[in-house]
């Protein structure tokens, strides 16, 4: 229908939390709308306050959380209408997730290659073991790993960066049209981070995959994304072309974010020490010798 890959229409989500006596209602996502077009793959960055509903929004797009109100359409199909294993698999064939915490992405009691092989088998149609292993190896190579390095390993035997790359490789195996990545690079080193965001660019340009990139890292968001959405307390407070928004933020919260970015440089050693202290400085603080 009218060329939209993803159409998010006024979705809201409320939660209730707390014990019997002190129940409170939390509006995690408040009337958010946006669209992704078919045939024009793009990287959409979602940035915002911790607890502002980014993960909840991502989960609704992944159809693992149902909105309290509003509609989500993928390729013209209403997500609320998906039921039965057939249509659910068709949905997962189009949308795949990458999660925040690589240590939580895989069952600690199982070997990681299990998920790679499973994904390949379930979504490729062919069931041949040898080609499955080759395909898994190829996907791992795209993220700078190989099957040899991860085979027979449990999640705790891989580092955070390795696990996150395995998670990306797994998502690629389903050959999706949209990847929803919730803080995919927050636990890996700066250099690898660049390899992965460059990989996202390649996925967009060469494979035509759109990516929703939830992050706290404004610099990489600036570096790779086409569009950006800034969220605060469940609402989108500013959105638009990534470079424009980040270079000249309009909304006060965006400006605040922009100012709080810690630059990777030390201009004045004295400023380094006094930054951001909100408690009283005790006179007993030891002398510093640097």
């Amino acid at each position, binding site marked *: 229908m009218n060329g939209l890959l993803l159409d998010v229409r006024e979705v809201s989500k409320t939660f209730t939390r707390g014990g019997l006596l002190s129940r409170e209602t939390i509006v995690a996502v408040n009337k958010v709308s946006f669209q992704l077009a078919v045939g024009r793959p793009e990287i959409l960055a979602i940035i915002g306050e911790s607890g502002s509903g980014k993960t909840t929004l991502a989960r609704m797009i992944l159809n693992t959380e149902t909105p309290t109100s509003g509609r989500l359409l993928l390729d013209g199909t209403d997500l609320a209408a998906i039921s039965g294993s057939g249509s659910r698999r068709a949905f997962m064939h189009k949308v795949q997730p990458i999660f925040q*915490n690589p240590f939580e992405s895989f069952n600690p009691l199982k070997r990681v290659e299990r998920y790679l092989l499973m994904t390949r088998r379930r979504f490729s149609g062919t069931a041949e073991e040898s080609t499955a292993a080759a395909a898994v190896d190829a996907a791992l190579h795209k993220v700078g790993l190989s099957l040899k390095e991860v085979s027979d390993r449990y999640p705790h035997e*891989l580092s955070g960066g390795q696990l996150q790359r395995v998670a990306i490789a797994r998502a690629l195996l389903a050959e999706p049209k949209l990847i929803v990545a919730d803080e995919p690079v927050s*636990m890996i080193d700066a250099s690898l981070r660049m390899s992965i965001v460059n990989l996202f660019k390649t996925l967009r340009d060469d494979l035509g995959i759109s990516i929703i990139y939830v992050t*706290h890292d404004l610099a990489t968001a600036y570096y790779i994304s086409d569009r950006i959405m800034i969220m605060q307390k469940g609402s989108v407070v500013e959105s638009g072309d990534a470079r424009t928004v*980040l270079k000249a933020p309009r909304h006060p919260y965006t400006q605040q974010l922009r100012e709080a970015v810690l630059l990777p440089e030390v201009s004045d050693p004295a400023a380094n020490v006094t930054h951001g*202290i909100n408690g009283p400085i005790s006179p007993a603080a030891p002398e510093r010798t640097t």
Partner: protein
Amino acid sequence: MHADAEQPQRDQDAQPLLSVRDLQAYYQTSHAGVRRGIRAVDGVSFAVRRGEIYGLAGESSSGKTTLIKSIAGAIRPPLEIVGGSMEFAFLPGYGGLHRAPPAELERIRWRHLSYIMQGSMNVLNPVRRVRSSFVDFAYPHIGGSRRRFEQQVIAHLARVKLDPSVLAAFPHELSGGMRQRAALALATICRPGFIIADEPTTALDVVVQKEVLGMLRGIQRETGSSVLFVTHDMGVHAHITDRLAIMYAGRLVEEAATTEIFGNPLHPYTRHLISSLPRIGDDAPRQGLGGAPPNLADPPSGCRFHPRCPLAREICRREIPVMGESAPGHRVACFAVNQGERA
């Protein structure tokens, strides 16, 4: 008020809080009868002084967490300490927590030493409310009336910008960043003398992150404690650490005052790391490091960086560069640097 009574002011510089000497920590796995050692930490030496924040950065899977785990005594098979020692000022004579008797460990945990592990959100008990975790872990060490304890917890949560209502929530009802802050609050509420933190702020937005770092800095200054801080976020290092060490493939490659590392990086890996950082407003393409990451089960000979190093030369393949002081307080392990040549 919590200042360590047993911390004589004068030998602050003389005796570091923690000194690690030539530490080797391997994951010893045996596979179908073949023993395989992953040399995740291989000959690391450094010292953390009293009252300083010591930063540690480096490549993913270079062994930072392994190093931290060894120091914190969280050593479980297949991880083994193969060589070297870790001496704490508050636990002299044992050469590491893993060699200390359980009674001694009980004494120092929480009060003297607190360890925030990577992915620390998982510390919170998933089937109980956040309040129970605080009561279980921190109450025995703080004591007093439950009322006062609760107030103390609420005040402490406020320092990491968390609302008291999180106490009544289950961990899965909190966002990732909220869980991470709850875990951080839990680890710091007893105001330990030495905080070991492995990526404690990765899930926070920059505004909250700044507050939380301020809190950590505040506690550190009030109690004169030391912090060993691991993160990939070089902005955080620039902002909070006093000295910074860079790790690559199980070894330290460079260590200096944080200002020095950013202002005058010497090791080729450090240089690459610093130059790969993207900035807002800068559209130049950045590249990740080329070549394959080292395999720690069979690391490259000589300098472990040589297959990917632009300055590599003959000697790098054969010999292991040792940490040499290129300037006072600036140590580098690189033949090119130590022989006075720079790129």
